[in-house]
């Protein structure tokens, strides 16, 4: 549909050519640009606009019918709270709210676990490693939801979350969150909205705001497991407990 964008430019070029060479065309009798021509142009343009308007109204849903994710006003307080709570729960040792879980898996492991990153990405998940007495050669993995707010809408549930891939002794984390959003906003000219029900305030933001957080991975590992992780990204729950 990118070709559609060219149509106005094409028309502008046509009109420009007409303006420049119209007189020559008239003289050569190719066609004459007289006042009928101008009125035909004006009214055909209006006709085209009418058709487009009718199409726009009939074919596409109204603003109320558009599916939109829930508004942040409704969901954000609870989400923020829940997100922060995860960390606290982990430190406290209680199992976090399962509704926030994306996945929970169990893996077999020997003596070491190597955590690596693959691919290029910017958002690194928070990794909490908890050493536990009970885990024997197994690692429990809990992955918790991040959140994503863009321009007052809660897109969390639209996120595509890729779980880390587990190898024999390795956990490879690649880009966990796939988020592709095309946000289009349309606003009428404020000058003419003066008396409509919306008034002059625009629901328009020329900047867009977003809030997001990365996923949280909570690993419960055997007590003696050697954890190799780059960049000191891993947080050990015991240390956190001590700090408190």
């Amino acid at each position: 549909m990118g070709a559609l964008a060219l149509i106005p430019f094409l028309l502008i070029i046509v009109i420009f050519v007409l303006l420049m060479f119209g007189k020559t065309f008239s003289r050569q009798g190719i066609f004459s640009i007289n006042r009928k021509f101008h009125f035909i142009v004006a009214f055909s343009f209006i006709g085209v606009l009418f058709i487009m308007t009718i199409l726009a109204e009939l074919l596409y849903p109204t603003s109320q019918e558009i599916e939109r994710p829930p508004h942040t006003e409704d969901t954000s307080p609870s989400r923020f709270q829940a997100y922060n709570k995860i960390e606290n729960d982990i430190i406290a040792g209680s199992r976090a709210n399962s509704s926030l879980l994306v996945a929970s898996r169990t893996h077999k492991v020997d003596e070491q676990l190597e955590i690596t990153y693959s691919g290029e990405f910017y958002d690194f998940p928070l990794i909490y490693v908890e050493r536990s007495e009970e885990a024997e050669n197994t690692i429990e993995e809990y992955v918790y939801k991040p959140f994503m707010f863009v321009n007052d809408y809660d897109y969390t549930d639209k996120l595509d979350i890729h779980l880390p891939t587990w190898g024999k002794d390795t956990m490879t984390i690649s880009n966990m969150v796939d988020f592709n959003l095309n946000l289009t906003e349309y606003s009428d000219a404020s000058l003419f909205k003066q008396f409509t029900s919306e008034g002059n305030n625009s629901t328009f933001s020329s900047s867009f705001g977003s809030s997001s957080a990365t996923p949280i991975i909570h690993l419960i590992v055997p007590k003696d497991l050697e954890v190799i992780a780059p960049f000191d990204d891993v947080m050990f729950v015991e240390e956190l407990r001590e700090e408190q």
Partner: protein
Amino acid sequence: MTVITCQNVTKSYRSYNVLNDIQFDIKENTLTGIIGRNGVGKTTLMKMIAGYTEVDAGKLEVFSENPFNNLIVSSNTVFIDDTMTFPESMTIQDIFKECKRFFDRWDNQLATRLSTYSGLHPKTKPYILSKGKRSIFHAIIGIASRSPLTIFDEPTNGMDAVVRKDFYRALLKDYIAHPRTILLSSHHIEEIENLLEDVLLIHNQTILFHGSITDLQERFITLMGTEQKLGNYMDSDDVIALQKIDSYVTLTMKNRFTEQEFEVMRENGIHVSNVSANDAYVALTGKSKGGIDDVFN
């Protein structure tokens, strides 16, 4: 019916007095020539009659109405001069269509035929025409509009001699077929002598003469004869022009003679002939003493 009534009308531009206390009437369905020297106020007078400018004092009535800003006068008058403008985007054909819309008596066939005859292509835009062709175009509009009052202000400006003849002939033919009141100003009096019925001569901020063209001619007389025979008249104050070749003298003077006196002159061998309107005009408006030669002496 009197179409134009002018009583004690005065018009000045800034401090310069153009027309002072002038008085005349113009009757319906006459062809009047408005003549005078350059800058004497012919155009001013015609503009006032057409309602484009206001009089400073006095009463001017056209169709019994004050012509300034008047819809009745405007609908029944057309003013043709070389400062007429039309929308640039309109062709001759388009303009004729608008003329048809505004002028009730517009004859489109006549206009089209005249313009074809004059070599004006209907799809041309007037502003690109040469001065002469544009004058022709304006003149065509004046003739074909058949307005009850048609005013031509020097319509033959830029026209060549052939076209001028054609214009006068066309105007006369249409005027005879569809009578209306026509005012025509021109410098070429000798050309329009045969066209005009009446003449309005403006000179020195006043109307020097208003009447039929024959009356104008009869104001003066040309006497031709030997110096000996014309001796009495040569010294008279009424002499306007004097030409001497050897002993043969041509004398133009004011006509104060009766028919009997003319008889006597003819018996005496003096040749009496009429003066052309142009000569009469020159005589009336020229300087009484000296001429251009004095500038060079």
